[in-house]
């Protein structure tokens, strides 16, 4: 590898348009500064940080240069990314909490049930919102594909479809197996099932990541009408509100279960985190972390789109 190649590789994380504009200058700067020496970690970190900032800027999530349309689109897509985190966290939470009512004294059901219902109902609302939003983009996507642009989105869409079909087959297989097992075998009693279940979880996460990536890729390229963009942004705000309700519901359920049925949290899946209380099982800690991460992304997106939505300054 030549010296120039080494420096070219270092700028690979920057967006293509940025590299086209500033790449040569930056490589020249790196050559002049470091020559044949190793590039210090601080400089590598500075470049990675800048590349991330430029990616986010190009996405339209930061920076004053983005127009109202770009802000609405970027904000809505960021909220969709946040929702992907909630889908994973929600599956984790649902698996962990599925038998909570049997382990909680009946007289103490009110609070955990309220929290659980909040999570469930907000989850359903979120899924409906995403489906409605996806259906609103179908006409634009149809025009886009008929306009000869199919090749630019073919790869992520085909990949997501294949992953979805594989996941459905995997789910059918594991469900068929689980049907013949006892409750104990399904919850830690049979290690081969545990291993396959973990693989299934990984497959779900991968499929979700691919689907979200494909949605971002396609939506960024679509020519959306003014009204559609505003409606999508409104739906994205509803989705953010659903995420807030899910976090509140989870916190309420978790807190009330730790008071009224701590043994359920202690004996549940993923309990026994080192240096933590028994009411902080690993599985729920991961779900909580993902929810907070998703909420953070969604709040950033909402903050980006809300001013443009309020000012009615969308122009095409």
């Amino acid at each position, binding site marked *: 590898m030549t010296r120039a190649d080494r420096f070219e590789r270092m700028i690979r994380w920057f967006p293509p348009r940025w590299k086209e504009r500033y790449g040569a*200058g930056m*490589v020249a*700067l790196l050559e002049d*500064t470091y020559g044949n020496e190793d590039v210090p970690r601080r400089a590598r970190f500075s470049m990675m940080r*800048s590349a991330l900032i*430029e990616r986010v800027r190009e996405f339209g999530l930061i920076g004053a240069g983005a127009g109202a349309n770009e802000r609405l689109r970027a904000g809505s897509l960021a909220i969709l990314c946040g929702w992907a985190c909630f889908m994973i966290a929600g599956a984790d939470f649902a698996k962990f909490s599925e038998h909570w009512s049997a382990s909680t004294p009946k007289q103490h059901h009110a609070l955990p049930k309220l929290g659980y219902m909040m999570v469930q109902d907000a989850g359903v609302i979120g899924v409906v919102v995403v489906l409605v939003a996806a259906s609103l983009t179908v006409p634009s996507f149809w025009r886009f594909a008929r306009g000869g642009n199919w090749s630019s989105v073919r790869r992520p869409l085909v990949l997501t479809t294949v992953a979805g079909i594989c996941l459905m087959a995997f789910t059918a297989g594991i469900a068929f197996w689980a049907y013949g097992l006892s409750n104990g075998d399904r919850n830690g009693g049979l290690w081969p099932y545990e291993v396959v279940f973990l693989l299934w979880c990984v497959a779900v996460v991968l499929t979700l990541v691919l689907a979200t990536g494909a949605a971002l890729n396609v939506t960024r390229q679509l020519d959306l009408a003014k009204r559609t963009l505003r409606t999508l942004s409104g739906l994205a705000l509803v989705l953010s509100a659903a995420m807030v309700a899910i976090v509140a519901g989870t916190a309420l359920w978790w807190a009330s279960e730790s008071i009224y049925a701590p043994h359920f949290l202690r004996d549940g899946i993923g309990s026994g985190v080192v240096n933590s209380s028994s009411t902080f099982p690993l599985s729920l800690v991961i779900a909580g972390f993902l929810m907070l991460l998703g909420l953070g992304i969604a709040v950033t997106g909402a903050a980006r789109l809300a001013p443009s939505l309020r000012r009615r300054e969308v122009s095409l």
Partner: protein
Amino acid sequence: MSKKTTSARAGLGRNNEPPLLILTSLASGAKHGYALTKDIETFAGVSLGPGALYGAIARLEERRLIEPTPSDDRRQPYCITASGRMALADAVREMRALSDVGASRLGLRLSTRRTGRVIANLGEAR
């Protein structure tokens, strides 16, 4: 809530932030990336990383405060624009006002003749 200063409104940030350092460096003539980092290191003692430098260059160019100058080399030089000089002059005036207040409250005597001439020159660019 604190009142935003003129230089903050121009997006130059605080006194030791890359955009202001780059504009100050370019005020003495066009420079490419490496020359900028060396000059900034000399006059401000700040070592800008390649990411921070080019991030700031991109923002300044976006705001039309600097512009690239023609070059046959891969080393792309940049020069300050008229708007860049105005933004820098505003920032320098603000810093001057702050340093005057600080100096008077500390009872310090600052040499003002040279600084005053530099600011006057920057003002003429407007």
